[in-house]
Structures are given as C-alpha cells and as structure tokens.
C-alpha cells in the first residue's frame, strides 16, 4: 500500500520552475531515496510536501488522504515527519525536552498544555528513544551543547517519538564523521526493520545506494528517472546530470 503519493507537483518562484509536475510514491515499509545535483529541487519538494510552501499545482496524499495545502503542524500530526539538512534542535531545551516536543499533540487540551507535565509513559518512551540513538548520557544536557552529528541523532529520536507513517530525512549523514555515518545508517536500517517508512534526500551515494530500495532522480525540478540503485547507477541521463556530457 502507498504511504505517500505526490502527484504532478509544481512549484514556481517567479520565472523559475523549481519543481515541474513531479510524481512519485513511497510504499509502506520502504526506504526510498531522492537524489539529484545541488539545486535540483529536492528540498523544495520536501517543503511542498510538508506544507512549508504551497505548491502551485499538484496534490500530496498521505495514506490515501489528501494533505495538500494543510498547515505544517496538521501535516505533522497526520503522520508525516521531517528532519532538516542542518539539524534544528532547540538549543536551550534539554535533549529530553527536544524529544518530548515531538509527542502527539492531537488530543492535547489547553489544560494539558498549561498545567500538566508530559506523562510518565511519554517520558519513559522518550528516554527509550534517546537510548536507542545512543544519547542516554546526555539526556539532561541542553541540545545546544551537542555536536552536529549528535543533533542528527537527536532528530532521529524525535522522529521516533512522533511515531509517523512516513519519515522524510533531508541529508541525514550530511556533515557527519564516517563513524557516525555508519551509526546513522544502522539506525535507519533498524527503524525500517521495525516497520518505518522513509523518503530520504542524500548526497552520499554510498549511503543512499546501500539503504534505499528505490531511487528517484531529480534534475532542474524534473523527475529524470526512478528505479532500483543498480538501474539508476547505470542510467546515462543520471550520469549526465551529475557529471555533464
């Protein structure tokens, strides 16, 4: 079953067509990669899917339900979670609070927000996810004291806390040291094995070829091709997009 479907998505910035009728889908339990040279429209696609930009044309469906044009927070609560290219942890909040922020806000009343702390169950769950990504020694540390790589791990823990249908990862290994890259790869693999669905943007070809089952290639806002890593690797159009004629 399709977890996420993007149909004919177009986004223009003045005269520039950043996305031109892009159509793609991600099946439940899949890890799908989205690759392309810099400026090809990958992050713009994420921004349109997540409600940060309103697309000029096209529709986005999450588990068959249309989410086009909804607000970022309602899309997130519908089951779509996104991590950022540059981690956006809240520096003054602790690691635990950063993860707790991602708890479900659907049934949260004003009284809950104003007068209640997060329940013990939620704190226990958050602590488990922090342990899972290996940050358990830093649980009370302000997130601003974490390294860039640790903040990427923190984003994964936050994603787990939300328990979304699909996780959109924007360069999860960008700017991270090789040891941590392997750790992040392993974590994504384990999360996928436990049933999580991923759509990820990644510039590290070794990583994306290794963990993605299918790939979409974007160039100048146009979807060049799709296929399994082997097919994409041998596609002339893709090679041309990356290395030129």
């Amino acid at each position, binding site marked *: 079953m399709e977890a996420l479907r993007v149909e004919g998505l177009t986004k223009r910035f003045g005269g520039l067509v950043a996305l031109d009728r892009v159509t793609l889908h991600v099946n439940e339990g899949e890890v799908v990669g989205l690759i392309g040279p810099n400026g090809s429209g990958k992050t713009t696609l994420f921004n349109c899917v997540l409600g940060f930009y309103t697309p000029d044309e096209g529709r986005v469906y999450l588990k068959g339900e249309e989410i086009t044009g909804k607000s*970022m927070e309602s899309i997130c609560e519908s089951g779509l979670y996104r991590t950022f290219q540059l981690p956006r*942890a809240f520096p003054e909040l602790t690691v635990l609070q950063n993860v707790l922020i991602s708890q479900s*806000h659907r049934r949260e009343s004003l009284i809950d927000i*104003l*007068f209640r702390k997060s329940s013990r169950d939620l704190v226990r769950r958050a602590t488990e996810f922090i342990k899972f990504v290996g940050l358990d020694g830093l649980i009370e540390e302000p997130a601003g004291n974490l390294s860039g790589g640790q903040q990427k791990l923190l984003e994964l823990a936050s994603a787990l806390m939300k328990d979304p249908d699909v996780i959109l990862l924007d360069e999860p290994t960008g700017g991270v040291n090789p040891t941590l890259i392997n750790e992040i790869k392993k974590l994504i693999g384990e999360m996928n094995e436990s049933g999580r669905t991923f759509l990820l943007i990644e510039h590290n070809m070794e990583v994306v070829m290794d963990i993605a089952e299918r790939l979409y290639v974007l160039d100048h806002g146009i979807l060049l091709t799709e296929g399994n890593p082997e097919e994409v690797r041998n596609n002339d159009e893709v090679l041309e997009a990356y290395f030129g004629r």
Partner: protein
Amino acid sequence: MEVMGVAGIEERLGEKPRKWALYVAVLVFLICLPLIVRGTYYRHILIFTLMYIVLAQAWNLIGGYAGQIALGNTVFFAIGAYTSSILLERADLTPWVGMWVGAFLAVVVSLALGFVVLHLRGHYFAMATIALGEIARLSFSNWRFVGGAQGISLPIHSPSLYYMQWANKVPYYYIILTMAVLVTLLVHRLHNSRFGFYAKAVKLDEVAARNRGINAFRLKQLAFALNAFITALVGTFYAQYIMYISPSSILLLVMSILIAVIAIVGGVGTVAGPILGAVFIFPLTEFLRAELGGLAMGLNYILFGAAAIFVVLVEPFGFVALVSRIRWSFVRRRGEVELGGAES
C-alpha cells in the same frame, strides 16, 4: 578519593528544603515589611514595585516564553482599569467583580488583536503593538463614554472592602502582594508544564516547532491572552489605588517599554527574572525621577536607559544569570572547602 560533581555538592547541601525555607522567609519578610517601612512615599514605591512584578510576569509569558516583544500592554491595563472604574462609577459594582469583567474583556480583545498581529514576527510584531497602544490612547482620548482626555475620577466612598478603598496604603500593599505571589506561582507552574518548553521552542525556532506538530499560533494566542488577563487585573488595582485614570496617565508607551525592560533586564523566560528586574529597576526609576527629574527633562530616562544597557552588556541573560553565576561560584567554593577538609 572520588571527585564530587556540582550535582553531588548540591545534594549534600540539601538544596530543595533550603530553597523552600528561603521562599517562606522572603514571604514572611514581605508580609512584615509595612511594619518596617512606615513612610507613605516608601510604601508607595513598595506597592508599585510589586505592581511591576505582576505586570512583568504577565509580559514574560508572551515576551519571554513565546518570544513576541509586545509593546502595547497598556491597552490591556487600560481595559482593566476603565472597565471596573466605569462599572463602579455608573453601576456601583464592586471592583472585586469589575476586575474579572475587565480581565475577561481584555482576553476577548487580545484574541481579536492577536488574530491579526500574532501572524507578524520580530520587529514587525513589536511595531504593530506600539501602534495598537497609540490607537487605544487616541481612541480613549476622544471617547466621551470613557471620559475622553479628562479621564475618570473614581467616586470616593468611606473606606471599605466592598469599594476596595482605604485611607492608608497598607491594604493596597497586601492586595498587590497577594497578586504578585499568586501570579508568580502561576508562572512557576506554567514554566514547569508543557507550556514552558513548547513556548520556548516556538521562540527559538518556530518552523522547527511547527514541524514537530506544535500549533505555534495557538500557543502565542494563549500566551497573549494570559498576559492580557493578568495585566487587566492589575489595571483595576491601579485605578482603585490611584483613584484617577486617563489616557495620558495609563496609556503611555513608556509604561509598556518599562514593563518589557524590567522582564528583559531581570531575565526573560524565567520565573525569577521579572522579580529581580522590578526590584532593581522600579526603585531606580523612582529615585532618578525624584532626584534628577527637575534638573532636565528626560534626564532620568537617559540614566535609566544607560543603566539597563549596562546590565544587559554585563549579563545578556539578565539578573537571573548573574545571580546564578554568583550562586554557583559560591556552591563550588563551598564544595572545594568541604573536599579539602575531607582530604586532610
């Protein structure tokens, strides 16, 4: 020997019971203060300092936690003051009821205004709230129903609880002290509830907070409404205490700025910040006004501004951070002394 961390030292010093003992001692001291401070002028300074604690605590919710620099809080202050005063003057309704009507009205107005201005960010929001304050001042000045530019003089009754009127300042002191304690407890509760870190997340990075499912707009509206509610209650207190209100005495931009500066200099997004800020700034402004106000127009404001800038330059996170730094150095030194003793 095992080296003891700061956390361990704190535990050994029995931090929590000591904290509560300190709070109780401060409260007892404040309750007894009118017995020590007998001069009318000094009692007035005490009352206004407490009043600014409450106003800065309210502002702290929208400005310190949610990060929206609101500079039009006098609008809500005026709504509270005018509502209860008009109800008292024309319907003989006790201000004890009128204050809640005013606070309710202020919440309604804050929700309506917030619907427009809370979509703005940063300087644009601050400028919009300044404009709201000015619009309110001009509107009230030309609105006959609320007394126009002349304002409202409250009818004088014999001292009674019903009319919230007394011949001396002590009952007013206890009313505003009660408000300061209750509002501080409320902010403490909010600080430790989900509101505390959700609002801080919105302040730090609104897009990232929304990306985690936080309804940032609703949260800001909530903070704005709470701020309006508390500020309006203080407005009623002010009207009853001064017995006269007019647009030129309560709808002043300088008052809105003073409220914000108190919270900022004290330490935004903290419970103690507005208290420390008010205790430092209000007596200072009063002293400068009394000593220098007659020398040259605005000289007191120049010196007050310079003092506030100096404090922020020395400690950008306000007095709270300064106090915390001093406290930690004391705790560390004490820990070292204890460790030294254990080693020998």
